[in-house]
């Protein structure tokens, strides 16, 4: 018999990641369909510190803790092994993870080991009358939306970030912390990390930015991106680009937002001279507010924009920036 929901948690600098807190909130919504069942979270790390208490305050009824030196640096092989061991011991009906860099490498493998497949990148989760997990997920670069019922026990799903708000912290909430032992000594790590080089990013990272100003083919030149730099600086954001602008060599490929680039979830996404092909929208459609500036009123970007200006960016943008300066200074 399967019972309850297990969130596959992640830690960032010693505390549960925002996505993990969002998944806990989603878990509490889903568990309402199963009275008397509980929402658990797995926190596996070299050392979890105070993270279990924070998880409980944000909705975890049970925190399963695995601490092991082999988890330092979160090698996917070790993370998959502990997640599999936890699921086999806990026997949840639903396993819910978040969509992160790490989970991209681990959740499909976990699902395969559990004999099922992962419902990837879900934008809504619910429970139907038969108690099945129902997931909504964008496909074809956001051109279509699929609703799927998960048939396996357990069902395994990854929740997209910023879909569910974390529950407010309540330090009076009660929860249990249970330690699990997993043997990570024998041949678990088969993909060996030899060297890891991470640069300090210049300015705000696209993935973390609250505001992104992106430019596309319509900008016409490398120089035009300096206007976007000004706007991004003014709003404390980052500059992105469409594939066309990267392919043209105006900006490095690390700027690229879209299916073949980065997936971003800012509060505000300003698309300048971007037509909005599904290839691009796949990377930014999760932004809270999209503003399109394009001279073509029929451009696809306007189908996804909350606000739009049909006009020549060379005139629209300087006036927009100047007015913003007045408002914000």
């Amino acid at each position: 018999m399967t019972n309850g929901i297990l969130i596959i948690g992640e830690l960032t600098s010693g505390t549960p990641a925002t996505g993990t807190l969002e998944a806990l909130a989603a878990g509490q919504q889903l568990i309402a369909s199963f009275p008397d069942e509980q929402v658990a979270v797995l926190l596996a790390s070299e050392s979890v510190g105070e993270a279990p208490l924070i998880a409980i305050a944000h909705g975890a009824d049970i925190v399963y803790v695995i601490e092991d030196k082999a988890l330092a640096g979160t090698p996917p092989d070790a993370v998959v092994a502990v997640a599999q061991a936890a699921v086999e011991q806990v026997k949840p009906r639903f396993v819910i993870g978040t969509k992160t860099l790490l989970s991209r490498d681990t959740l499909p493998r976990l699902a395969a080991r559990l004999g099922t497949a992962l419902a990837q990148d879900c934008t809504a989760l619910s429970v139907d009358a038969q108690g099945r997990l129902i997931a909504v997920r964008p496909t074809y670069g956001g051109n279509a939306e699929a609703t799927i019922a998960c048939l396996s026990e357990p069902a395994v799903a990854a929740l997209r970030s910023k879909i569910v708000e974390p529950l407010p912290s309540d330090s009076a909430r009660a929860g249990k912390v249970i330690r699990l032992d997993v043997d990570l000594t024998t041949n678990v790590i088969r993909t060996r990390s030899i060297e890891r080089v991470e640069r300090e990013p210049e300015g705000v990272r696209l993935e973390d930015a609250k505001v992104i100003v992106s430019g596309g083919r319509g900008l016409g030149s490398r120089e035009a991106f300096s206007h976007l730099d000004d706007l991004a600086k003014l709003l404390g954001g980052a500059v992105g680009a469409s594939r066309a602008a990267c392919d043209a060599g105006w900006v490095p490929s690390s700027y690229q937002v879209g299916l073949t680039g980065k997936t971003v979830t800012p509060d505000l996404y300003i698309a300048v001279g971007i037509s909005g092909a599904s290839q691009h929208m796949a990377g930014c459609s999760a932004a809270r507010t999209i503003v399109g500036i394009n001279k073509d009123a029929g451009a696809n970007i306007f189908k996804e924009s909350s606000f739009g200006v049909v006009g020549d960016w060379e005139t629209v943008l300087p006036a927009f920036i100047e007015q913003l300066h007045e408002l914000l200074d």
Partner: protein
Amino acid sequence: MLHLVVTVKQVIDPETPLSAFRVDNGRVASPPNQSSVINGFDEQAIEAALRLKETLNDVHVTVISVGANFALDVIKKPLAMGADALILIQDSAFENNIDPTLTITALVAAIRKLGSVDLVLAGRQASDWDNGQVPLAVAESLGWPSATVAKSVTVEGHTARVQRVLPDGHELVELDLPAVITVSNELGTPRYPNMRGIMGARRVQPVVWSASDIGIDVAAIQPAFDLIGLAKPTKSMETEFIVGDDDADAGRKLALRLRESQIV
């Protein structure tokens, strides 16, 4: 011999504008009704295999694709690029399937049937369902190690060395063959087929295997998902167009409107 398998997927061209994208009766309209291409990341996986073929002796590159409606001029492109063989695993059950279970089962069975495969290269994800899980699940089913988002792949003896892409850097990993490696666009632009390759590909016919040829009973495979609905997303908001006396005025009004809505 080093036997490389590259898995590729034929997908609807991701540059298809929304207006041309069709969903009929809860299914995405198939080729030939929509133009299709080889998934972009998969072309990079082919490129990674061909680079290994150029630098090492005695490398054989087999491309495998699982699908229902192959467009031969599209799916034969890997042969024109320089792959040695193409195997198409064709069954109507493989059409538009969000459930990767069938594809995974078919690829694992095909790789086992081939035998003596040293390395599977695959694109990091497909542009249609964007799952990014088939290659990793194939690795798990075969019991092989895996590495993701490679920007370069080299092989020395029985070991693969992979430079992986990180958001702000890179990681070098090593894994023993046989293994599965997924390839990212940072590997570089896939080569264009040259005239000799195109002429050569004309003479090579793909090997077509049915599900029963690889010993799988499609009806007996337990699906992971049931597709309840597929639709073009309903727009939750209407676009508010900001109109001014001229473009500059529209720009100023946009700033005022965003401030008023507390967005900036």
